C-alpha cells in the first residue's frame, strides 16, 4: 500500500536519508526502529512532503505521491502523528478534533459516530473537550494527537514515538490503541524506541542506521534472536 523505494532526503545541504526502502501493506503494523538521529522522523516527514525528497519514489496505493500537495495526503488516507504531537495549543480539544472532522462528505451522523468512537477509546478527551489543547498533560496531548489523526479515518497512520516520555500506565494505553487500530484494519508505520512494544505490536520491523535501512525481519525472528537488536540498538 505505502511503498518507499530508494528514498533520499536532504535538509538544506545535509544528506539525511540514503536510499530508504520500506513497504507497508494494507492493514499491517510495521515497526521502524533505530537509535536517535538515524532518520526515522525524517522518513515520516518525507512521506508527508515536509522534508525534501531528493531521490527515489514514494507511492501510496500505486499512486506516486510526488506532486500531491501536502494537504492532499489526508484525503488519500494518510494521517500523521508527529513526534512533538503538534497539538493546536489555543484550540480546544474538540476544535482540534474538528480539524480532521470538518471535511467534505461528512454527515452529522458519521461525525457523531466517529467522535463517540474516539471518546470510548479516550474518555479523558471527552471530559476535557472544551479545554485548550495546550493545557493538557503530555500523555493527554499524545492521546489527542492520535485521536485527531483518527478523525481522518485514515488507511494508514504514521505514528512517531507515541510512548516517548510517558509513564508505564500511559504506555500500556497507547499499546492498547495500536492494537485496536490494527483490529479495525488501519495500517500503522510505527516509529519507536520501545523495543518490546514494537515487537509486540508490529508484524515486521525495519531497523535504521545512519539514514539507511540496515535490517528487516519479522517480529517473531527478532524476538527469537535478540543479537540484531543488540547490535543496532544497543539494548
Amino acid at each position, binding site marked *: 500500500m505505502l511503498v518507499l523505494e530508494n528514498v533520499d532526503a536532504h535538509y538544506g545541504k545535509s544528506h539525511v536519508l540514503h536510499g530508504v526502502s520500506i513497504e507497508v501493506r494494507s492493514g499491517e503494523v510495521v515497526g521502524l526502529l533505530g537509535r536517535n538521529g538515524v532518520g526515522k522522523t525524517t522518513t515520516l516527514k518525507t512521506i508527508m512532503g*515536509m522534508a525534501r525528497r531528493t531521490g527515489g519514489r514514494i507511492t501510496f496505493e500505486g499512486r506516486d505521491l510526488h506532486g500531491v500537495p501536502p494537504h492532499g495526503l489526508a484525503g488519500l488516507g494518510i494521517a500523521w502523528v508527529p513526534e512533538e504531537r503538534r497539538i493546536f495549543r*489555543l484550540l480546544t480539544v474538540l476544535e482540534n478534533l474538528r480539524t480532521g472532522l470538518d471535511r467534505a462528505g461528512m454527515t452529522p451522523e458519521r461525525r457523531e459516530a466517529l467522535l463517540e468512537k474516539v471518546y470510548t477509546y479516550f474518555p479523558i478527551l471527552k471530559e476535557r473537550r472544551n479545554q485548550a489543547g495546550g493545557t493538557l498533560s503530555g500523555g493527554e496531548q499524545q492521546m489527542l494527537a492520535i485521536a485527531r489523526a483518527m478523525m481522518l479515518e485514515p488507511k494508514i497512520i504514521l505514528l512517531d514515538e507515541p510512548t516517548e516520555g510517558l509513564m508505564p500506565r500511559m504506555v500500556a494505553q497507547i499499546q492498547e490503541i495500536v492494537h485496536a487500530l490494527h483490529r479495525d484494519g488501519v495500517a500503522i508505520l510505527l516509529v519507536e524506541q520501545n523495543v518490546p512494544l514494537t515487537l509486540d505490536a508490529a508484524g515486521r520491523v525495519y531497523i535504521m542506521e545512519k539514514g539507511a535501512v540496515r535490517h528487516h525481519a519479522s517480529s517473531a525472528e527478532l524476538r527469537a534472536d535478540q543479537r540484531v537488536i543488540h547490535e543496532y540498538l544497543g539494548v
Partner: protein
Amino acid sequence: MDQILVQTLHGLVNGMVLAMVASGLTLIFGIMDIVNFAHGDLLMLGAFVGASVLGVTGNYWLALLGAALVIAALGAVLQVTTLRPLIGRDPLTTILATFGISLVIQKYALWQWGPSVRRISEPVPGDFTLFHLQYPWYRIATAVLAGLILGGLWLFLKYGKYGIWIRATTQDRLMAQAMGIPVPLVYTAVFAIGSAMAAASGVLFGPFAGVTQTMGFDFTLRAFIVVVVGGMGNLGGSILASIFVSLLESYAAIVVSPAQAVIVSFVVLVLTMLFRPTGLFVPTPK
C-alpha cells in the same frame, strides 16, 4: 466633566472603526506573517468604490456591501498573483511587494477619481444633544455597526468550520496541512476577508471626513500601531488596543490640539516596544 464624557464617546467611536481596520491587518499578519502595507489603500479603494455605488444606487448599505465584496475579490487576486509566489522567501520581499501594491492603488485612485475629496453622505441623519454639544447619530451607528461586524467575525472564527481552519493554520501551518486543510486557499481567503474588513471600514469612515486617495497611509500607520500594541496577530488584543489608544488620544485632545494628540499613539507604541514587546493585551508568554 461634560467634556470628558463627550471625549469618551468620541474615543470609543474612533476606536471601533480603528478596531475594524486593525482586525484585518492582524488577521493577515497572524496567519501569513505579512505586514500588509497596502491595507490602508485597500480601505481607501473600498471607500471610493462605496462612494461610486452610493452615487449610482443611492443606497448606503448596498455601497457598504458592494465595496466589501469588490475589495475582497481584489484582495484574493492580489494575494494569488503577488504574495503567494513569495511564500517561503525573505520577508523583505513581501514587504516590498505590499508597498508596491500600495503605490499602484494610490496612483490608480488618483487617475480614476482625481485628487479632490469625495463625500459619502450619512445614512443615519440627525444629531442628538449631549450636554451642550451636538453629536451625530451616525457616529453612534458606526460604532454599533463596527461592533456587530467584529462580533460576527469573532463568531465565525470561534465556531465556523472555516474559522477553525484559519485558527489552526495560524498556529501550525504544517500540522494544519497534514490534517487536510487546504492552507494556500486559507491564506487567500484570509487576505480577502482582511481586505473586505478594510473596505467596509472605509465606507463606514467615509462620512466622517470624506474620501481622498491619500487617506490610506494614515490608516495603515494607525492600524499598524495598534496591532503592535495589541500583540501582533492577536485579534482580541488589537481590538482592545484600538479602543485604548483612541480613548487616550481623545482625552489628550482636551489638553492639546487634536493634531498633537496623535503623538499619544506613538508614545504608547514606543513604550510597548520598550517594556512589553509581545503586546499589551496578551497574556504574558511563558
